[in-house]
């Protein structure tokens, strides 16, 4: 793509870094910015952006990846479902390798379960249409970006009159956990690098309470290295000026009103609910369940199954990492017992997970 390269231009990134150094020159007090999106985490590690920042500016990673924040009990239910003889589980690739309490979908697949990795939930609907004697369960995990796509798949299945397509929904929405983290005195977050594609759907308004109630500057930032640097520069400027506003760096994609059509699909198919976050616990109103009008597509309601008791992995620090309180290297398992090839915790599985990024790109 023609301007993609320019957003990766090293000179631009270095110019922005120099501007950041100018802004903070003479300041002794550090500022901490959290990125809540795993794709930002990846970009920060991949392009070594931390090394370009002055010591006063610290970046920490938050609960950025839906795969990482999905707790074991969800995986345990998915495992139980895939053991049913007439069930096909369809999912995005990352979920397959996340360890549940005692098994993972990958292990179940090795034992013969029918698990299909798809690129789009519409592919899962197509599998259901081709396999009328089977029940197809799609693992509906994701934030505001993914929820409309999965809602769209339910609408498509309804339109096609399919009675064998189901979604095991564990969608989560971003602003609530950001509120929880903002209130945490241990973290002292001075600014948020807000997720790019979540914001594409929602628009900037969802972060306003963070700027107004918690006085934390928020900048919706794109994923290229120059985007992230400019996002940090905009945050630094606000902090230095003592301001807290929601700004959009990623204006080439994010509109002030967000994507109304996608918002409409979310409202139609889902209802807000309380949701459990790995590491953070249950956050009221932070999830999306399937609305009653679409209950026939809800795997949890439509396919009852016994689920094993949930167990956490001994020694795994994922919970603290997702809250920004620990770095991957703080975990005794990092790089030893836990690697991307044989992950112990979720943060090492998803390519957007903080531990996976730290392992792949080093510090």
């Amino acid at each position, binding site marked *: *793509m023609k301007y993609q390269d320019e957003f990766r231009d090293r000179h*631009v990134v270095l110019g922005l870094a120099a501007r950041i150094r100018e802004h903070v020159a003479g300041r002794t007090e550090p500022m901490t910015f959290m990125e809540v999106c795993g794709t930002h985490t990846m970009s920060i590690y991949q392009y070594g952006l931390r090394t370009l920042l002055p010591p006063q500016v610290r970046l920490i990673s938050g609960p950025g990846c839906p795969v990482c924040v999905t707790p074991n009990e969800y995986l345990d239910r998915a495992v139980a479902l895939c053991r049913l003889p007439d069930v096909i589980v369809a999912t995005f690739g990352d979920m397959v390798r996340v360890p549940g309490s005692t098994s993972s979908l990958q292990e179940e697949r090795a034992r013969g379960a029918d698990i299909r990795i798809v690129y*789009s939930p519409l592919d899962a609907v197509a599998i259901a249409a081709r396999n009328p004697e089977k029940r197809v369960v799609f693992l509906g995990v994701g934030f505001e970006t993914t929820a409309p796509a999965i809602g769209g798949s339910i609408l*498509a299945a309804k339109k096609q009159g399919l009675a064998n397509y189901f979604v095991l929904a564990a969608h989560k929405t971003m602003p609530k956990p950001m509120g929880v983290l903002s209130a945490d005195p241990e973290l002292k977050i001075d600014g948020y690098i807000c997720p790019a594609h979540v914001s594409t759907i929602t628009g900037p308004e969802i972060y306003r309470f963070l700027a107004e109630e918690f006085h934390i500057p928020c900048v919706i930032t794109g994923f290229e290295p120059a985007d992230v640097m400019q996002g940090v520069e905009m945050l630094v400027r606000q902090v230095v000026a003592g301001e807290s506003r929601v700004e959009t760096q990623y204006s080439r994609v994010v509109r002030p009103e967000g*994507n*109304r*059509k996608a918002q409409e699909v979310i409202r139609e198919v889902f209802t807000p609910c309380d949701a459990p976050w790995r590491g953070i616990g249950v956050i009221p109103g932070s999830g999306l369940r399937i609305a009653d009008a679409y209950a026939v597509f809800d795997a949890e309601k439509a396919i009852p199954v016994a689920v094993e008791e949930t167990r956490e992995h001994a020694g795994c620090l994922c919970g603290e990492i997702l809250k920004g309180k620990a770095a991957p290297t703080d975990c005794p398992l990092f790089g030893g017992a836990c690697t991307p090839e044989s992950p112990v915790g979720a943060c090492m599985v998803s390519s957007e997970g903080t531990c996976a990024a730290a392992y792949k790109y080093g510090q």
Partner: protein
Amino acid sequence: MCLGVPMQVVSVGDGDIVAEIDGVRKEASLMLLDEEVKEGDFVIVHAGFAISRLDEEEAQETLRLMREVFKPEDMA
């Protein structure tokens, strides 16, 4: 997971498009897009759905602002 990829629209069909990046072509649904797209436009595609159009003017404007801060002595 919700990594959206910028792709260029190759053709517009009835409710979907074919889009291309780095020579790879994929179909994407227009069900979630609230903007008009035409051949040649760039869109962000996520999980089989086009979710936003990429605004070239805004992209150029962002780059212009970035260039403003860019100083020759930093170009190490």
